[in-house]
Structure formats: structure tokens, C-alpha cells
């Protein structure tokens, strides 16, 4: 107990960083996923190929390997540290790699959501003169979004857990701070236990929030 109280400030800094990386990655993964999903459904074949290659590459290699490759491997052949700064390159690269990895899964979620909308809805939108963008924006996406919420929340929970893989490439977050504390105090049981509880609280509140959101949408809109 004693050891937890004493090191709590350090651990909480780690927690704050984990939350920050999670928020950034969750926002970016949805943006990336939406763009890639629209590309995958595009009439223009090269766009489809690019998006498909992206999804397959990121889904078929481990996130940890992607992180090592981009955060630590790339600086060996490119002067990225000079471009972005010694301090900033690893942080930006790690956040982006994580977002791209999660975005690959989100692409498939959004694509399935769009394809799940009845074809008649799109045809009705076209028949009143809507163009492709308006049809997506006002008719297809709002309906797709509702059915996408549960899988997207799952993916967000996965993203929070996956931020722990930033520690091995030297990015400070919850696990990283925990390892530092343990190196000084040898209190592995207490500190790892604390860290597990903190992740649990984060993800549990996320899933509670999403069931609340789903209930709201159920009542408001059909």
C-alpha cells in the first residue's frame, strides 16, 4: 500500500499519457478508417488497390513489429530525427503507427457498416437528385454509423490496450512508468496490479458510456 501511495504521482503521469495517446489514436483511427473505407468502395480502381494493400499490410503484421520498424528502424536509413526533432519523431511516429494499425480494422468496420445499409436507401437518395457525397453524408453514413457503434467501441478498447505496446519502443506511458517504478522499488506485484486496475477502469467506463450512447440513439432515432 505504502509503495503505491508513494509512487502514485509517477503512475498517474503514465496514466495521463496513456489517455492522451488513446484519444489521439482513437480519433485518428476513425478518420483514417473512414477515408480508407470510402477508398475501398470507390469506383476508381487504384484507390481501391491502395486501401486494400494498406488494410492487408497492417492486419497481417504484428503491431509491435510495426512499431519497432517505424519508430526505431526508419531513423536508421532516413534523417527523420532531424526533420521532426530527436524528441518528437518517436512520439509522432509511434502515435501514427498505432493509429494506422487500428485504422486498418476500423476500415473494415466502416466498410461493412456502409455495405449493410439497404440499397434502396441509396437509390431513393439518388432519385431526389442527391450526388454521391450528399447520399453518403446525409443518408448512408448516419444509418451505417448506428450499427457501427458496438464494433467501434470494441476497437477503441483494443486501442487503449494496444497503447501498452508503446513502452517497448521507448515511449513513456502507463506501462513504461510502471517499469521505472518497479526498477526502483522491486514492488512488481503491487505496481502491475495497480496498472491492471487502471486499464480496467478506463475500458470499463468506455463500455458503460457506449451502452448509454446506444440507448440514447435507440430512443431518439430509428
Amino acid at each position: 500500500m505504502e509503495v503505491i501511495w508513494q509512487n502514485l504521482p509517477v503512475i498517474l503521469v503514465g496514466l495521463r499519457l496513456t489517455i492522451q495517446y488513446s484519444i489521439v489514436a482513437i480519433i485518428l483511427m476513425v478518420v483514417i478508417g473512414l477515408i480508407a473505407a470510402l477508398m475501398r468502395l470507390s469506383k476508381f480502381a487504384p484507390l481501391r488497390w491502395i486501401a486494400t494493400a494498406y488494410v492487408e499490410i497492417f492486419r497481417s503484421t504484428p503491431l509491435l513489429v510495426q512499431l519497432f520498424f517505424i519508430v526505431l528502424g526508419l531513423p536508421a536509413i532516413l534523417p527523420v530525427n532531424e526533420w521532426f526533432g530527436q524528441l518528437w519523431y518517436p512520439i509522432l511516429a509511434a502515435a501514427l503507427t498505432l493509429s494506422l494499425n487500428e485504422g486498418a480494422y476500423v476500415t473494415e468496420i466502416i466498410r461493412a457498416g456502409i455495405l449493410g445499409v439497404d440499397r434502396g436507401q441509396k437509390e431513393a437518395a439518388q432519385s431526389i437528385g442527391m450526388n454521391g457525397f450528399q447520399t453518403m453524408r446525409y443518408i448512408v453514413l448516419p444509418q451505417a454509423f448506428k450499427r457501427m457503434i458496438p464494433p467501434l467501441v470494441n476497437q477503441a478498447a483494443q486501442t487503449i490496450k494496444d497503447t501498452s505496446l508503446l513502452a517497448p519502443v521507448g515511449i513513456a506511458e502507463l506501462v513504461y512508468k510502471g517499469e521505472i517504478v518497479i526498477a526502483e522499488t522491486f514492488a512488481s506485484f503491487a505496481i502491475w496490479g495497480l496498472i491492471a486496475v487502471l486499464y480496467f477502469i478506463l475500458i470499463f467506463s468506455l463500455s458503460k458510456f457506449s451502452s448509454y450512447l446506444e440507448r440514447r440513439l435507440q430512443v431518439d432515432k430509428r
Partner: protein
Amino acid sequence: MINVRDLHKSFGDNEILKGISTHVEEKEVVVVIGPSGSGKSTFLRCLNGLETATSGEIEIAGMTLTDPKTNIHKLRQHVGMVFQQFNLFKHLTILENITIGPRKVKKIPAAEANRIARELLAKVGLVGKEANYPDELSGGQQQRVAIARALAMGPNVMLFDEPTSALDPEMVGEVLQVMKALAVEGMTMVVVTHEMGFAREVGHRVVFMDDGLILEEGPPSELFSNPQRNRTKSFLAKIL
């Protein structure tokens, strides 16, 4: 109002429309009949560009649909379409279903769009349903909303693809009533339907389609009582 010349449409190797030519006058009500799979829906969908003609020419509402330079979105504002399955926007209220086209496509201010929508709801007999969602309405009510949604764009022509086929029998009348009122007002209409009573009473001309071709056409009284072709005779014998 509509001019179709030698319209062909294939899906892959499968030729569905095999050279359709016809003409629809302003304020004319044309009823299209024919056996299942004869290409009635495909023909109608070609008329507002939901299907792209393989060859041939379509002029509609003063525009040449088959000209690649024609703005298809602009054209569709002048060609209303009513579907068998209604296809109301499930996530929008009845009022929003009707206003979304005028607001987002024609950029009409919300207040004005709402005024138009309320007028149209009164016309189709659905005052008081503004705030409901489509799945809270009966099929007949939904189809009347779908008609109002199409009318809100101010079309010059209305296309109906079996508008009453998905309805319980007791709701067919209310939809036909609305369509009849529209015809009386002088709307140009092309209606695919098996409602022979409607065809007789409201239609100026009946077109019989079979296997991707127009086999026979004429005023309802003549075509129904004195069909010239054997295919028409046997089809009418089945449904009359």
C-alpha cells in the same frame, strides 16, 4: 415530355431491354404492364438514370439523359420516383424525409422547405405525422410520404414502380387515390402496376411489355377489350 428511341439495356451478356421506343406527352398518364421479368422496372430505372442504358436515346423533362454531358443529379430533380418498397429514409422523421431533398439538393431555406412539406403532407392526407419515424407508419402511409418526398422536388414527371404491390389490400386504395389526384392535376406519370382498375380509370395509354420489348400499346379501353397479340391476350386473361 419523355422520348425514348431504341433503348437497349444489358446486364453482362443478358439483354433485358431489346429496343424500346416510345413517347410520353406532357400530362399523359402511361400505365406499363407485363409479366414478371419482362423489364418493366429496368425500363423505369433507365428513365431516371438509376440504370445506365447500354444504347439508345432518352430525352426526359427537356434534357437528354443519354448524353454524357447531362448533369444526372440535376435531371433527377425533375423526375420523381416512387419505389415498390417505399424506401423512406429510416433515420429521419416524416417531415425530414420530405425536406431533406429541397434543403440539401435545392438549398431551399429550412422554413420554406418545412412549409412545402406541410402542404404536401396535407395533400397526401398525413397531417400530424410530421414527427413520426417511417417504421411507425403503415405501408400505405409510408408510400404516401414517399410520393410527397418525390413531389417536394417539384418534378415534371413522376415514375411509379409497382407502388401498391407491397401493400396490404386495404391500403391499396388510399395510395391509388393520391396518384389519381395527381393525374387529375395534370402530372405526367409513368406507372408500372397490375391495378387494372387504376389503369382503366386514370391511364390514357397502356403499354404492354414482354421480354424486353413493347409488344402492344393503346388506350386502356381498346387494349383491354380488344388485344391484338396472343401474348397480350394470354397475359390479360391471367390478370383480369
